[in-house]
């Protein structure tokens, strides 16, 4: 006999889903509305606002910047994070416990604080150009995620496999590339995706580090909303949403979502 589900539970589930999905549907509707203001339900159907994104040069520029920063920042975070996660796991017993905590600490510090302190130190203090300051900021922003996800992957890696390779005559550095890396590939891919999405969607850190002529997409969306209230915003939001969904589908198909969430 099937267990009867309490009607209240069904109702609660529906309400929660409406709250979660409702705004997305509204944004989606508004993005195709044939009006010059945000309207839902949409009046008429047009893809004009999607074209409009590309017409506004600020959007065009910030989309390119956002992708550059996200790709380069994530790549740099991987270059630092993979060896760090490896060392933390390989020498777990010899290293003090607080060291691995130190590496994930930035997750706990409010991003707005990180943004401000980076502005003070590297932008104003050292006079680093805006783009590179932004890049450094995003690298630091995503580094803790990279280290955490790859550490999780390395935690189940048996280091005697590495020792077996070394005993068979493989040099330690070569062993790292031929034996260790191939076995944490899925962790690295998961870290890359999580870091990329975090970087693309970031507002707090970017808010402080963007400067004259160089901005990221989320910051540009904020700036745009302050002046205009046309459906272009809705269509940009839909694009960002689609990007995230596509990435998630790829992750689900290749690794399973648990690779990112665990």
């Amino acid at each position, binding site marked *: 006999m099937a267990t009867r589900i309490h009607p209240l539970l069904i109702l609660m589930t529906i309400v929660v889903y409406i709250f979660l999905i409702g705004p997305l549907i509204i944004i989606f509707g508004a993005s195709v509305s044939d009006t010059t203001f945000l309207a839902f339900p949409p009046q008429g159907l047009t893809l004009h606002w999607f074209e409009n994104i590309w017409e506004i040069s600020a959007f065009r520029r910030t989309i390119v910047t956002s992708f550059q920063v996200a790709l380069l920042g994530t790549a740099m975070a991987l270059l630092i994070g993979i060896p760090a996660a490896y060392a933390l796991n390989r020498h777990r017993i010899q290293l003090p416990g607080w060291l691995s905590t130190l590496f994930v600490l930035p997750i706990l510090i409010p991003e707005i604080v990180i943004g401000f302190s980076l502005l003070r130190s590297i932008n104003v203090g050292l006079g680093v150009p805006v783009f590179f300051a932004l890049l450094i900021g995003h690298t630091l922003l995503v580094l803790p995620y990279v280290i955490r996800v790859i550490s999780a992957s390395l935690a189940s890696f*048996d280091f*005697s*496999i590495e*020792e077996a390779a*070394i*005993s*068979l*005559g493989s040099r330690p550095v070569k*062993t790292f590339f031929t034996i260790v890396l191939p076995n944490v590939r899925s962790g690295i891919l998961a870290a890359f995706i999580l870091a990329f999405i975090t970087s693309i969607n970031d507002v707090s850190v970017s808010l402080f580090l963007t400067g004259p002529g160089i901005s990221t997409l989320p910051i540009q969306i904020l700036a745009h909303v302050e002046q205009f209230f046309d459906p272009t915003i809705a269509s940009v939001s839909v694009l960002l949403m689609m990007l995230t969904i596509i990435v998630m589908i790829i992750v689900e198909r290749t690794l399973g979502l648990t690779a990112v969430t665990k």
Partner: protein
Amino acid sequence: MTLPLSIDQITAHYGTTKVLEDLSLTVGDGELVSLLGASGCGKTTTLRLVAGFLQPTSGAIRLGDKDLTRLPAHGRDIGLVFQNYALFPHLSVKNNVAFGLKQRKLASGERDKRALEMLDRVGLAHLADRLPGELSGGQKQRVALARALVIEPPLLMFDEPLSNLDAKLRVDMRVEIRQLQRANGTTALYVTHDQEEAFSISDRVAIMNSGRIMQLDTPETLYQRPANKFVAHFVGFENLIDLQVTARDGEMVHAQTHDGGKITLSQERLGAIPDAFVLATRPDGLVVTNDASATGLPATLGMRTYLGRAYQYQCQTGAGQLIANGSLATPFESGAQVTLVPNPDQCAILQPE
């Protein structure tokens, strides 16, 4: 080509903790020596020092004429077999076995040929294209063995290789390991905590405790002539009785415990007996009798347990609690007053410590 291993006065530390003290050990050419002991005794540390994964504080390790002490692990040319197999999960069985040959820059055709030959010797040639994840525990350990042997190392080392296998397979595998080691004539160092495994597979066994070798001997000698209380207790001499010689009558020696329990022993069986000594016996080495005229230790029987082949008694004596086995034909009740007479076939004489 195979070489003798000599470990010369090795001392090792983890941080500030001393884990090995002044340990020396020689494994002859083609010999298999086991390091046997409880966890934390230093046996795995010794193996890791030889492998090059740890550095000694002082001392030297030599393989033939070559000094290994400061050589990096990848240059030591030692075949290693691990407890958890340590196969490369992303490589096929054949490529696992060929890995060491690849490091030695062999052409790929020659690599595959030798890997397949070695897999054939361990009976797994038909699984060459599988991934390790598809194999059973026993098959994995055979692949690991093939991978270690195919590089024709002058020294093979095993770190508890059978601990993850079930009991039946463990016996089969240890015979197989021994046969392969013998056939290749490879010098081997074998770490285990399982006494039966160590005794059955080894030419000589080193029994270790807190970073030292307590005794290094053939299994037969260890089993019959332990050199000290620790080894005696380890190989099953559960009763250790302190005795003083009171009189000598030719080869017969009369001795007594501090509370006056009397024992008579023959030096013909047990070798020279010093004036003060420890008599070590297994539970089977104390005969339980109620014959009042027998010379032995008076005892009060405590709890009786059934072993299948005998009854075992906890015995309260003036020399402390002893364990004795009695025949099934004449069971004694708990509380009975009896005499314990040592059976020299199950006894050993130790120096007092």
